[in-house]
């Protein structure tokens, strides 16, 4: 026997430990996966042994493997075993493994509650320490709820080592279990003045984190923090406090003034850059200091300087604008992060005056930029800068359009659609620019081959979408509509993505209408118009064959229309008017938020099924079908199912048939392969793509009006304007001068208002639905976990708890009752919660009226401080009784009885936790005997459960243990026994007063039956 054990131990000596494993992995570089899989097999064997040392070793190795990316979730239970070891050596390893491997959905976490509780209260501070550390990584809402009290106690532990850990972990607990914040807060506040600096800084940490999210609840702590800030010398703590004040100052402007002095002291005295950065960040008062940061050769400081500057920009744009030179310089930096930061800053710095200049610089950078990501970033920034706040800074839209057109030169950009949407937006909203835009777009269409190049995926071809639409919609501005129409129907178009082709086809029709009108205006030449129709009839069939359904549908529709028109034309009928009428009316832009702003009409519930959903998803249908018809046949013959499902099944079968037929007839079904494209390109155009590439830049120069020209024009125009104004001014002055008030003429820098837009730009605002609700909370994230922590901690300085009372009102008379008002005379202990702004004696309006014979329920919330005693509250209900001819005011007095039972919440409890609870010895006992109870035991238990909110933990024969918990977290345990009509109840609770009262109430329940 002993020999066997010895042998086992010696075997184990040759087990791999962690170092061996690591060494092994390093020695098996070629077949690492294979080596590790044998290791995992070994570990599985080791975990099966009883020796905890072996298990711990195995778990330690698993933790390492987990880091390498191997799944070790199967060993979760073994980890718990090692955690539960009484030896610190193993416990430490177990907790480490748990903190690395467990997450919220690990189900064994449930089993750890009691173990962790035991470790938390261990006499060895390091046991407690590892438990707290581990818990900080895998705390779940359940663990937080169950352990909140234990951790709260630890906050007052004698050892600072434990105190600081407990304080820090409370933050995690608050996040998971927000209810714990209120009871824990007073103690947390106390810790701000803890003698140990570590604990103090931990408390500062936690409160700062809390306050940053919901600053208004922590305003009252400002004086305390102010004291800390002026007395502390710890940079880490100071940074946190300054951050906290940064969050508080917007709420309490007076704080700002008070802070200036200590902060400037810090800024001047500190040598720590991090602290300086924090101060500067918070005060935002010295931009000059930032310039030093940005000019520094250290890339880190440069980056942070730019970051801080962008924050200042939001509040003081003027002070930043003077550093434009520096920021433009940063655009040339080698480091992409820094360039991007600088770009962000530029966004906020533009004005009407410098927009063109800045964009010109950016365009130069676009040309120089290497790598598409940065170039794309530049492109989006240019568009952002120009389009910000409704094109506020653009004075010359012709310039902007030409910038957009120049941007289309970028090859391989992902942002074609962005440029396209800008083109569309400008063309639609700025009416004055349409003629110019249309001319530009026509050129674009004419040179489409330059944009598409030879790559289908080239994102830039998206701009053709915009170009085609603009030319079609505003075709009346076209100078040569016929040429554009021809350009839009070139065979090469068929190689564009489907959605663009669709727009081409549709807008070709619009253009056609315009062309017809022009041609019919000229008398005696009907053949020209007919030729136009013939052009469409010749070219459209290409699109009718398209694999894209949208294109196909539009093309065939329009083709038929044109054929019909041609017939009419041959009979010399004038059709232009009618064709134009097809596209009459103007499209207006709609705000992106418009849909959201439309209120849901009353009585419309969008979540309700209009028709019952079909009984299964498509894939299920297919599955059933493959199984054969037996399933249906059976169901139908039995007629067990309700009628509507039967119809559904038939309907489904029918639909399937139809779908199958459809698929069979549709030549485009399963035609995603590229071979289908051969279809559409009937005559592959011999496109000389490389020769075109060569002259790429050259042609651009020829056919694009360079935006620079516009910059120049604009400058000249401004000069002229200025001169004009000056003339006027001078004139005025002269007039004044005659009166004797001559002043020196000033020629200071032109101010923002002096620049007038080139032409009266009529920016059409986006349409909003008429009944839109003004809501500003469009962008609040409802899932933010910090929202739950928004608890007002000042209004209720004492811990108090809520009881919800639901009251059923029944109208027993024959008259109509309305305007009910519910009021209760508050006691010191229990208060009715009234809405904000209501006085302490105001009643609450019951939110409904009662017709005769009707009852309805209303809920009222009471806050209660002390739950040890039952209470009675006096209250009145006032209401108006309305009869046919009169209405009278009436009053009803009542008493609200809060029993101690009403403070108990049914809480399930596991039997092992229950026995631990009893063993702990914290509970005080009390007992009760009931005689002459002649009802079955299970009735009796059910009665206690129902009336007194207990749950049964365990029941053996005529003996049962029960558990409940008060709203303040008191545990209450009952042991109920019955023999010969006598019931004895042994009860234990950590609050004897509460227990006595509950027992009295139980007694009363049984005496009444």
């Amino acid at each position, binding site marked *: *026997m002993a020999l066997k054990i010895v042998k086992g131990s010696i075997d184990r*000596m040759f087990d791999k430990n962690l170092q061996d494993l690591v060494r092994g992995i390093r020695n098996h570089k070629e077949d690492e996966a294979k080596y590790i899989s044998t290791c995992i097999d070994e570990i599985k064997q080791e975990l099966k042994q009883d020796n905890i040392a072996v298990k711990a070793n195995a778990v*330690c190795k698993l933790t390492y493997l987990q880091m390498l*990316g191997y799944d070790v979730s199967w060993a979760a239970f073994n980890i718990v075993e090692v955690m539960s070891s009484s030896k610190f050596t193993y416990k*430490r*390893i177990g907790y480490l493994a748990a903190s690395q491997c467990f997450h919220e959905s690990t189900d064994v976490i449930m089993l750890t509650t009691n173990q962790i509780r035991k470790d938390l209260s261990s006499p060895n501070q390091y046991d407690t320490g*590892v438990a707290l550390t581990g818990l900080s990584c895998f705390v779940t809402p359940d663990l937080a709820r169950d352990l909140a009290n234990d951790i709260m106690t630890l906050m007052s532990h004698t050892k600072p080592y434990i105190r600081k850990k407990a304080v*820090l972990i409370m933050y995690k607990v608050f996040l998971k279990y927000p209810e714990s914040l209120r009871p824990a807060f007073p103690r947390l506040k106390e810790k701000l003045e803890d003698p140990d600096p570590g604990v103090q800084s931990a408390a500062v940490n936690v409160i700062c984190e809390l306050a940053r999210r919901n600053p208004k609840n922590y305003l009252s702590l400002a004086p305390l923090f102010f004291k800390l800030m002026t007395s502390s010398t710890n940079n880490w703590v100071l940074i946190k406090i300054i951050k906290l004040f940064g969050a508080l100052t917007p709420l309490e402007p007076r704080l700002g003034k008070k802070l200036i002095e200590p902060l400037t002291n810090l800024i001047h005295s500190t040598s720590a850059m991090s602290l300086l950065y924090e101060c500067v960040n918070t005060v935002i008062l010295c931009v000059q200091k930032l310039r030093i940061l940005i000019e520094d050769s250290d890339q880190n400081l440069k*980056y942070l300087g730019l970051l801080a500057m962008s924050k200042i920009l939001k509040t003081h744009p003027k002070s930043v604008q003077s550093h434009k030179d520096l920021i433009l310089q940063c655009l040339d930096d080698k*480091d992409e992060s820094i360039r991007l930061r600088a770009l962000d800053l530029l966004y906020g710095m533009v004005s009407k005056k410098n927009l063109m200049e800045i964009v010109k610089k950016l365009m130069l950078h676009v040309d120089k930029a290497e790598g598409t990501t940065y170039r794309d970033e530049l492109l989006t920034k240019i568009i952002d800068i120009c389009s910000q706040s409704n094109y506020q800074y653009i004075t010359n839209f012709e310039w902007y359009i030409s910038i957009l057109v120049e941007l289309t030169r970028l090859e391989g950009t992902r942002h074609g659609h962005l440029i396209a949407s800008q083109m569309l937006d400008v063309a639609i909203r700025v009416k004055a620019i349409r003629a110019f835009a249309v001319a530009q777009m026509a050129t674009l269409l004419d040179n489409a081959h330059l944009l598409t190049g030879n790559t289908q995926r080239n994102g830039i071809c998206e701009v053709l979408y915009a170009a085609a639409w603009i030319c079609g919609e505003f075709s009346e501005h076209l100078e040569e509509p016929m040429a554009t129409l021809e350009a839009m129907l070139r065979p090469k178009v068929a190689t564009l993505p489907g959605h663009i082709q669709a727009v081409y086809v549709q807008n070709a029709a619009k253009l056609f209408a315009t062309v017809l009108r022009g041609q019919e205006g000229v008398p005696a030449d009907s053949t020209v118009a007919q030729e136009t129709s013939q052009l469409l009839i010749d070219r459209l069939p290409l699109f009718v064959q398209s694999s894209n359904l949208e294109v196909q549908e539009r093309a065939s529709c329009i083709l038929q229309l044109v054929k019909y028109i041609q017939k009419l034309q041959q009979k010399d009928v004038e059709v232009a008017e009618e064709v134009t009428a097809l596209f009459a009316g103007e499209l207006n832009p709609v705000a992106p938020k418009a849909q959201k702003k439309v209120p849901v009409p009353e009585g419309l519930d969008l979540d309700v099924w209009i028709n019952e959903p079909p009984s299964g998803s498509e894939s299920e249908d297919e599955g059933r079908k493959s199984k054969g018809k037996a399933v249906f046949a059976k169901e139908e013959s039995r007629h067990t199912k309700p009628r509507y499902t039967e119809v559904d099944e038939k309907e489904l079968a029918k639909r399937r048939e139809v779908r199958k037929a459809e698929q069979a007839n549709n030549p485009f079904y399963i035609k995603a392969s590229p071979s289908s494209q051969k279809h559409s390109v009937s005559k592959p155009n011999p496109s000389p793509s490389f020769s075109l590439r060569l002259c790429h830049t050259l042609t651009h120069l020829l056919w694009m009006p360079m935006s620079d020209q516009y910059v120049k024009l604009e400058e000249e125009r401004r000069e002229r304007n200025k001169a004009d104004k000056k003339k006027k001014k001078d004139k005025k002055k002269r007039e004044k001068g005659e009166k004797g008030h001559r002043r020196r003429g000033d020629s200071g820098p032109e101010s923002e208002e002096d620049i007038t837009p080139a032409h009266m730009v009529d920016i059409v605002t986006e349409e909003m639905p008429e009944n839109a609700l003004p809501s500003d909370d469009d962008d609040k994230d409802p899932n933010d976990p910090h929202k739950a922590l928004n608890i007002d901690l000042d209004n209720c300085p004492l811990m108090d708890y809520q009881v919800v009372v639901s009251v059923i009102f029944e109208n027993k008379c024959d008259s109509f009752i309305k305007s009910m008002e519910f009021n209760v005379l508050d006691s010191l202990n229990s208060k009715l919660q009234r809405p904000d702004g209501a006085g302490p004696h105001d009643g609450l309006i019951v939110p409904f009226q009662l017709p005769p014979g009707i009852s309805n329920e209303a809920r009222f919330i009471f806050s209660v401080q002390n739950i040890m005693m039952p209470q009675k509250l006096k209250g009145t209900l006032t209401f108006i009784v309305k009869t046919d001819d009169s209405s009278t005011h009436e009053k009803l007095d009542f008493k609200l009885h809060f029993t101690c039972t009403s403070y108990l919440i049914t809480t399930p409890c596991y039997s092992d936790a229950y026995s631990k609870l009893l063993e702990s010895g914290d509970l005080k006992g009390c007992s009760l005997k009931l005689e002459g109870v002649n009802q079955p035991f299970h009735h009796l238990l059910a009665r206690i459960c129902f009336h007194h909110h207990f749950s049964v933990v365990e029941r053996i024969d005529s003996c049962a243990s029960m558990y409940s918990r008060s709203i303040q977290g008191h545990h209450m345990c009952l042991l109920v026994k019955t023999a010969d009509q006598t019931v004895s109840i042994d009860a234990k609770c950590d609050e004897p007063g509460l227990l006595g009262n509950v027992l009295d109430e139980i007694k009363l329940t049984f005496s009444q039956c």
Partner: protein
Amino acid sequence: MQFMLLFSRQGKLRLQKWYVPLSDKEKKKITRELVQTVLARKPKMCSFLEWRDLKVVYKRYASLYFCCAIENQDNELITLEIIHRYVELLDKYFGSVCELDIIFNFEKAYFILDEFLLGGEAQDTSKKNVLKAIEQADLLQENRPRQFFFLSAQLTTEKPL
């Protein structure tokens, strides 16, 4: 702080500590993405980058990259300081630490980190305190498990049949 990663120049993960609960899949994805981005950066570039809605602060010490993710309002420089402080702690504990120390004693590296940071917040700013706590906890921990087996084997032989 949301998480801390240690990885080598070859992109091998050496240590990971997550202060937010995430699934393994998510963790792997983030790790892969970040390791790639950080390794791609040139030595002269700054230590900060914006990544998703977080800020990433990293620093290279010899062959190891220390990389932390912090929230938007957090202070980057203090995070650099935290990284540096952790390296100092490792250095003091192992005596001029190298990558191999962390590989072979990775559990120790975790213990030190856990003494220094809790739930992503620095728990003690004093190096001395942290090291003292680690040393005392180490004293509690019995000597190497291997010796322990040997002792237990001896004990069992002494038992009568």
